[in-house]
C-alpha cells in the first residue's frame, strides 16, 4: 500500500521547523544601518614662517652668545692650566730652598680668582644654553606644523566650523557636491587666510561597503598664504599634502 502521509515519521515537519528556524535567525540578524557621516578631505601643513624666522634669529643670536662664552671659558681654562703649571714650578722651587713663597701665594690667589670667574662664566653659559634649548624647542614645534586653527569658513555659504585644540595634522574638509572650495582659515594669534582649491571627485565604496566621495588631482587656485605648494599634484586625497606658510 502506498503511503500518502505528508508527514511520515515527522520528517517533513522537522524540515519545516528547521527551515523556519533558519529564517528566524536571518530575520533576527537584520541590522540597522547607521547613517554615513563623512566629508572628503585633504591634509594641510601650516608653517608659521613669520614666527619661525623670529625664533631662528633668536636661536642664532644665542648660538653666537654661546660661542663667545665657549671662547671665554676656553681662554680661562688655558689661563688656569698655565697658573697650575706655574704653581707646580714654584712648589718645586720652594722645595729646593728658594724663597718664592710670596710668588706662590700670588699665584694661588690668581688661580682662585680665575676659578671663581670661570664658575660664573660657566653658570651664565649654562643659563644661555637652557634658554637656547627652549627657543630651539619652540622652533621645532613650529617646524612640526603645530598650530591652532580657530575656524574654517565656507565662503560660499558663510557656514563656519570651529576647532578647539592645536594639532600638527589638519584635514581640510572638501565639498562632496563641487569640484572646488573657497574657504577662510583663521589661525590663532594670526590673521585669516583665504584658500581656493580645485579637485576631482569620484564615487566609490569603501571597505565597509559604504559609498563615499574620494578626491584627487588637487590644484591651488589662489591663496593668501605665503609659499603654498602641493606635495603630490596628481594623487588622491590620502597621498596629497598642501603646504602653506604664513
Amino acid at each position, binding site marked *: 500500500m502506498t503511503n500518502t502521509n505528508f508527514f511520515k515519521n515527522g520528517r517533513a515537519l522537522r524540515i519545516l521547523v528547521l*527551515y523556519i528556524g533558519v529564517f528566524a535567525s536571518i530575520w533576527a540578524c*537584520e541590522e540597522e544601518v547607521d547613517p554615513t*557621516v*563623512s566629508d572628503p578631505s585633504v591634509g594641510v601643513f601650516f608653517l608659521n614662517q613669520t614666527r619661525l624666522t623670529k625664533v631662528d634669529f633668536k636661536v642664532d643670536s644665542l648660538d653666537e652668545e654661546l660661542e663667545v662664552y665657549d671662547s671665554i671659558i676656553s681662554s680661562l681654562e688655558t689661563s688656569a692650566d698655565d697658573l697650575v703649571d706655574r704653581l707646580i714650578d714654584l712648589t718645586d722651587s720652594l722645595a729646593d730652598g728658594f724663597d718664592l713663597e710670596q710668588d706662590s701665594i700670588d699665584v694661588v690667589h690668581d688661580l682662585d680668582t680665575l676659578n671663581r670667574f670661570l664658575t660664573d662664566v660657566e653658570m651664565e653659559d649654562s643659563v644661555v644654553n637652557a634658554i637656547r634649548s627652549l627657543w630651539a624647542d619652540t622652533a621645532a614645534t613650529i617646524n612640526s606644523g603645530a598650530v591652532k586653527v580657530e575656524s574654517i569658513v565656507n565662503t560660499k555659504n558663510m557656514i563656519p566650523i570651529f576647532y578647539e585644540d592645536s594639532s600638527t595634522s589638519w584635514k581640510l574638509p572638501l*565639498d*562632496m557636491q*563641487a569640484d572646488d572650495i573657497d574657504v577662510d582659515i583663521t589661525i590663532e594669534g594670526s590673521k585669516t587666510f583665504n584658500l581656493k582649491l580645485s579637485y576631482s571627485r569620484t564615487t566609490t565604496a569603501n571597505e565597509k*561597503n*559604504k*559609498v563615499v566621495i574620494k578626491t584627487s588631482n588637487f590644484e591651488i587656485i589662489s591663496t593668501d598664504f605665503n609659499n603654498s605648494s602641493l606635495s603630490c599634484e596628481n594623487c588622491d586625497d590620502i597621498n596629497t599634502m598642501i603646504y602653506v606658510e604664513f
Partner: protein
Amino acid sequence: MSNFKCFLVLLAFISFQAFGQDSLRVDEESSVPMPFLSTVAISVDYGKLFGQLLDSESKFEFGGQVELKDRFVLIGEYGFSTLNPNGAYQNTDYQSEGNYFRVGLGYKIDFTPKNNLYFSALYANSSFEDKGTLDITSASGIYSDLTEPFVRKDLSAQWFEVVMSSEAKLWKGLYAGFHLRLRIMGKYDEQEPLDVYTIPGYGRTFDQSIPALNLYIKYALARF
C-alpha cells in the same frame, strides 16, 4: 573558487548518499514501453516564499519540466524578485529588481520508486534594473549633505548553472525536493562608479560562482 570547491564537496556527499540508497534496491523490470513524452511537471520554489517576511527581499520562482523517456529532462524556470540586500551599499537604499529565466537539459535517475535524482545544466538570463539614493551627511557641516539618486535600467546578465536535484514523492504526483546549484557568471552589464551589487536570480556580483540551495514542490503528470 572556494564556492566551487564547497559545491563539489557537497555534491559528492549528496550523490554518495543518493547512490548509497540506490544500491540497496533492485529496480523492477517493467514490461510497459516507456512513452517518449513520459512526464510533464510544474514546480514552485516554496523556500523563496519565506523571503516575503523579510524586508530585504521579495522573490517568486516557478518552473516546468518535461521528461523524455523518463530519463532526459527539458527544464524551464522563471522568477522575479526585488532585492534590498543588507550587505549592499549601505548608504544608498540599494534595490535590484527584475525577472529571470533558466532553460536547460537534465538527466534523471529514479533510483527508488519514490526518489528521483537529477543532474542538469542550465543557461540563465536576467533582465533587471537597480536603483538607490546615495546619502552622505557632511561631517564638518560647512557643506551640503549629498543626496543623489541613481537608476540603471535595462540591465541584463547571463550565467550558467550546474544543478543536482533530489526529490521525494509525497503523494501521488506531488513531490518535494531541493536543487543544489552552482551558478557561474557569464557576463553582466557592469556599471560605474558603483557596480551592480546583486542580480535577480543570480546573487551578488562579486562572486564569480555562487552555490545555492532551493526548495521546491512539484506536481508531475506521468504517462506511465
